[in-house]
């Protein structure tokens, strides 16, 4: 048993407990200390993840390879940024309770377990640890009706999806006699012998995972939860867990079910197609910017799944690059959303950004960069993400998917540009409150990455390449 391989997870688990202790014992408010400790734990875990040796541990329950390294670093960056974004907001909204960073630490622990899972069991444990923590943070502002509703709704639907996932897992176990990914892959090495019960099981697993990544038609919860949850929570939701869930998706479909690609490819093509189109059209009519970003995230999941649908090395690489870029630009966009406060109250309508260029030019410029990037307009990072996945799809012969993707990004460009227009051209709706340095930091870091990615894309692409090589082994 090589527990060194699980060092990042162990560090997070212990830090979570330690932070809980820090939070409970003193009589004064320890939110800030806990949050800082959480960020520290994330950074430490990230450092450990980068240096982690490769191999599998705990009886093949978890693995550590280039893929887990890639995903873990992204997740930890997203989580750390999520905590940083919440600092000021939570203090002002009276949500500065120490449980918040603790829950995020446990959620992140769940994500790490998810991406390093090499067994349906550890997959489920990670997924549920993540989900349970997220249900609670969604309802973190419990005095707010919308937040409570968001948490409850997410819980009920999430439990249902988890049930489907479990059912699929048990069918898989029943037909292959194992829950280990490697051995499932061995059992499936001849796809023609895969029994239909197994295919049904796989379909249920896909359904459960599709819910977690909020792909259409399992997306319904996303706008409600994004809108209801406190904004930093939404920012967290849209960043790290998305990467983790997509990573898990890639791991499960690329690993144990890799030889059944012919079977799942059509399913992924379909949900990717639907997600892109719905994400593009449904966002247009939204006036609440958090709902809009929810639909935008649905669309982005659709684009990322284009890479998965290609079911090729290039496709998986595209998927990973896409998620990395998505994570980093999305954090910036949500930093802007978190900073949207006027006269001490959080505002979240698109109109509230009106005339931002005249009251806070730098924020307006950053936001414009994020919006252009999400629309996939060069030279910003978002363009390259799209390029990678579309190219992979075309090389895999899925040119309908690629063309629908391109056309739906045309449609989605419309609402991203609307935000730019509102910020730059509309009459100011009054200045926003000055934003705290923590939010500005996330915004600027994300903005610089988004803008300058094209200058030196090689490291990220190379890391993704290595991750894919490990994933498809």
């Amino acid at each position, binding site marked *: 048993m090589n527990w060194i391989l699980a060092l990042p997870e162990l560090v997070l688990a212990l830090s979570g407990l330690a932070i809980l202790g820090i939070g409970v014992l003193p009589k004064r408010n320890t939110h800030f200390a806990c949050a800082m400790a959480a960020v520290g734990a994330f950074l430490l875990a990230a450092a450990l993840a980068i240096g982690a040796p490769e191999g599998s541990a705990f009886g093949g329950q978890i693995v550590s390879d280039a893929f887990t390294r890639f995903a873990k670093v992204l997740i930890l960056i997203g989580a750390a940024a999520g905590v940083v974004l919440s600092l000021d907001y939570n203090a002002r909204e009276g949500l500065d309770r120490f449980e918040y960073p603790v829950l995020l630490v446990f959620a992140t622990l769940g994500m790490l377990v998810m991406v390093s899972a090499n067994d349906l069991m550890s997959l489920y444990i990670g997924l549920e640890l993540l989900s349970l923590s997220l249900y609670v943070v969604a309802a973190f502002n419990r005095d707010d009706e919308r937040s409570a509703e968001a948490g409850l709704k997410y819980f009920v639907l999430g439990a*249902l999806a988890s049930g489907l996932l479990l059912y699929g897992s048990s069918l898989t176990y029943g037909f292959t006699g194992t829950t280990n990914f490697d051995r499932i892959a061995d059992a499936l090495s001849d796809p023609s012998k895969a029994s239909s019960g197994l295919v049904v099981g796989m379909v*249920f697993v896909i359904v459960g995972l599709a819910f977690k990544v909020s792909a259409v038609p399992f997306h319904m919860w996303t706008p409600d939860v994004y809108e209801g949850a406190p904004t930093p929570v939404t920012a967290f939701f849209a960043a790290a867990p998305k990467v983790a869930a997509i990573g898990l998706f890639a791991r499960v479909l690329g690993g144990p079910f890799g030889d059944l690609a012919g079977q799942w490819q059509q399913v992924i093509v379909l949900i990717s197609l639907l997600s892109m189109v719905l994400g593009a059209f449904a966002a247009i*009519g939204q006036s609440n910017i958090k709902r809009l970003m929810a639909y935008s995230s649905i669309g982005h999941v659709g684009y990322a799944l284009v890479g998965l649908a290609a079911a090729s090395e290039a496709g998986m690489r595209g998927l990973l690059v896409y998620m990395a870029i998505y994570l980093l630009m999305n954090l910036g966009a949500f930093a802007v959303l978190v900073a949207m406060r006027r006269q001490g109250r959080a505002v979240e309508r698109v109109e509230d950004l009106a005339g931002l260029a005249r009251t806070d030019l730098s924020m307006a410029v950053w936001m414009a960069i994020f919006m252009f990037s999400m629309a996939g307009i060069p030279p910003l990072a978002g363009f390259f993400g799209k390029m990678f996945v579309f190219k992979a799809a075309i090389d895999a012969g899925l040119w309908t998917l*690629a063309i629908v993707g*391109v056309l739906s990004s045309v449609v989605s*460009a419309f609402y991203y540009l609307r935000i730019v227009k509102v910020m730059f051209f509309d009459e100011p709706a009054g200045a926003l409150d000055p934003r705290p340095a923590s939010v500005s930091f996330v915004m600027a870091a994300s903005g610089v990455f988004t803008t300058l990615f094209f200058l030196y894309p*090689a490291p990220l692409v190379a890391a993704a390449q290595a991750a894919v090589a490990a994933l498809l082994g």
Partner: protein
Amino acid sequence: MPDSLLLLALVCLPFLGALAAGLLPTRARDAASGIAGTVALACLGLVWAAYPTVSSGGVLRAEFAWMPTLGLNLTLRLDGFAWLFAGLISGIGALVVLYARYYMSSDDPVPRFFAFLLAFMGAMTGVVVSGNLVQLVFFWELTSLFSFLLIGYWHHTAAARDGARMALTVTGAGGLALFGGVLLIGHIVGSYDLDAVLSAGDRIREHPLYLPALILIVLGALTKSAQFPFHFWLPHAMAAPTPVSAYLHSATLVKAGVFLLARLWPVMAGTDAWAWTVGLAGLTTLLLGAYIAIFQNDLKGLLAYSTISHLGLITLLLGLKSELALVAAIFHIINHAAFKCSLFMAAGIIDHETGTRDIRRLSGLNQSMPFTARLAMVAAAAMAGVPLLNGFLSKEMFFAEALTAEAPLSPLLNILPLAAMLASAFSVAYSLRFIHGAFFGPVATDLPRTPHEPASWMRLPVEILVLTCIVVGLLPAATVGPYLAIAVHGVLGDDVPYYSLAVWHGFNLPLVMSLIALAGGVMLYALLQQRLRGDVEGPPLIRRLDAQRIFEQVMVFLSWRLARRLETLLGTRRLQPQLRLIVGIGLLAGAGAVWLRGFGPGNLPSTPVDPVLALVWMVGAAFALGTAWQAKFHRLAAVMLLGGVGLVVCITFVWFSAPDLALTQLTVEVVTTVLLVLGLRWLPKRFQVAGDRGPEVLTRTRRARDLAIAVGAGCGLAALSYAVMTRVPPELLASHFLERAYTEGGGTNVVNVILVDFRGFDTLGEIFVVAAVALTTYALLRRFRPAADSVEIPEQQRDQDGATQHDDAVRPTADWLLVPFTLTRLLFPVMLVVAVFLMLRGHDLPGGGFSAGMVVAIAILLQYIIGGAAWTEAHLRLRPQIWLGAGLLIASGTGIVAWFFGRPFLTTYFAYAELPLIGKVPTASALIFDIGVFALVVGATLLMLVALAHQSVRGHRAAPRRVGSRAGEA
């Protein structure tokens, strides 16, 4: 200078200049324009430095690693065609910078303007020197972006904002379509490299994906070049400062579209599809633009539509299946850049000096600005195609092509010369209007400013351009000839057709057509005089067909109505439909997979159905249906029926010889039912708002639908279970445990051995979790007392309170339910004995710590239910926390003891012991572990149930009572 450095400098210099200009202070007009001018001239110098290579038919090429994993390099490639464009971009750029220096007011943030302009210049250069299609798209979108910023430069005016947004929406979207097309081309060719693409013409044209690729690419080009039906953004972009219009709409932005068409001409043209899309769009635009231009009252609007029309001409030429037409197109690109740029500048001068651009207000400017008037007249004449000017030459070539070109359909061929003449006549008419309206007639008196000649530096660019028009018009072969040859060679390679650049080709048909068009144009203008002076806005006949309004309407429809409708149709914020959707799709997905793969029973022989068991199951099914039915109307009944279902399951377990499971099921069933009932107390009664309900039919339909979903899901699960159970399972863990339960665990009750021995570590973890859950439940519910205004005290409790108000509060229930009360008291010791029995025999026979713990918990629960919390706690000292803690300690202690014997954690020791009375009892150390489990289960169940049950005590805590304090202790 090495090629790579030259090309890199050509692309990067403008961007660096933009950065430098952008960093200047807001008022630094001279410094910014100085930087811009230097950069533009330097670029022009660089282009000129490439002339020797390019003129000898060579291609400059440089590659830089960019995304090696994707096979994408930054490839810069300068052939003759790109060279011509690069020259136009930097040359005209330099002139525009000079012009803008004097045009822009010092009140505007001029450095920003020059920064955008330079960045745009860089992007445009990037488009033309891209040696890679993806990179071309990249720069293409950059031009959209910077043109957006340039058009919206005066963002305080609504027109500029709308114009900029529309331009970006249309060209940006077109760019994305182009991106799709480029990806397809890359897929067909296998490379994005321009050289590779250009040498794969046949493969592209014969590929099945040719048509989609063509459509997407043409969409990109047409939107960029403002071709019908995407022409409407260009007139609105006229809200930009005039230097921007002069630059973007004469030589650069809109030319990018035709540049692309010409660039890909060798590989994509020549098919009917190409002719239909490109040619038809060009023809329509040519006529429509020219027609609308006549009726524009705004000088720049007139020029905008004339630009659309001339670009239509170029597009049409590119759409014809003729290499000579391509030559004409390239020639016209040059000519149009020269005269249109100078006209825009002239219009800008007029605007600058008079304060208006309305042709109806302007008049007689010939008096006050004679020199500008002369320049404008020459440029307009070139635009109209008057002989001895450059416009005439390319128009002649166009006429010649119109007469000879092949078209996919013969009627089109007959129309083409007519259409050419008509468009030409229109162009004469609007050129006349421009000149006549602005410079002739009586001197206007009501102008916002007194007109006079502009600064001579401002006029210099116009002079240079007009001079070019004249020189090219007079001596085409000597001046523009070599450059045109280079450009044509760049596109077509060595098979350049013969063409002649001369003013006089003899008295032939094209000349006749020119003369007719000239005369027709003059006549048309004369006829329309009356109408044009009026206040009627827009062209006759097609005024209602305003593309911009259609665009707006489509946008509103898409962005508002369609989106709203889709959301109401497809989206919902209610939980129930969302749940329904997930279940429904899960069901469909499962069914779909089954349907696709086929899914029959397995190979195991089926055993006959026992009629009694079938009957039991029918009872169970009836219970289940009843639960579902009653859940809406009567929750308590539903819970009881659910208990019935559990009972049937329990019997089934017994039937199939799984007494252990049955026992567990039974005890768990009892406890969960009690839990449910305790929880249900707090739910409000079902209420109905009068008038809020739909018709009865709707309700019924809804319930029927729910029933259908439930039946579907149930059948699906049943089918799956059937399929699974009729198969020989693969090698599972079960056989492993069955073999080893006795030999290694010393027990015949395999389930128990697994729990306490094989998977003892898991069980230990689980009991810790159970303990944590129990404590959490207790912590949450300990103080649970809902506010009076949120939840009422449950009805049952109110009844009870009413009944006991006047009574002795300590022993209320005993008086009500005397017989059950006595019975349960008698039963209590019996149940404890049963628990001990189950506990001890658990290792070999059904039973075990868990079941025993449940039985004890049930025994105590019975006392609570019948006797009431107060009475029970007065007679039984319950310490759930102690049970919990003891259980955990015992269980972990057993594990730790193993360490003292040098064994791993939780290793069991096994033997039989003779106990008096009971006989031989298996005494594995696992038994001690099992006792720990037992204690924990008792403690946890009690703690949770007590926490729930005490709400009834707490409901009326206001009255201080003896038992109340004790309840608080627990």
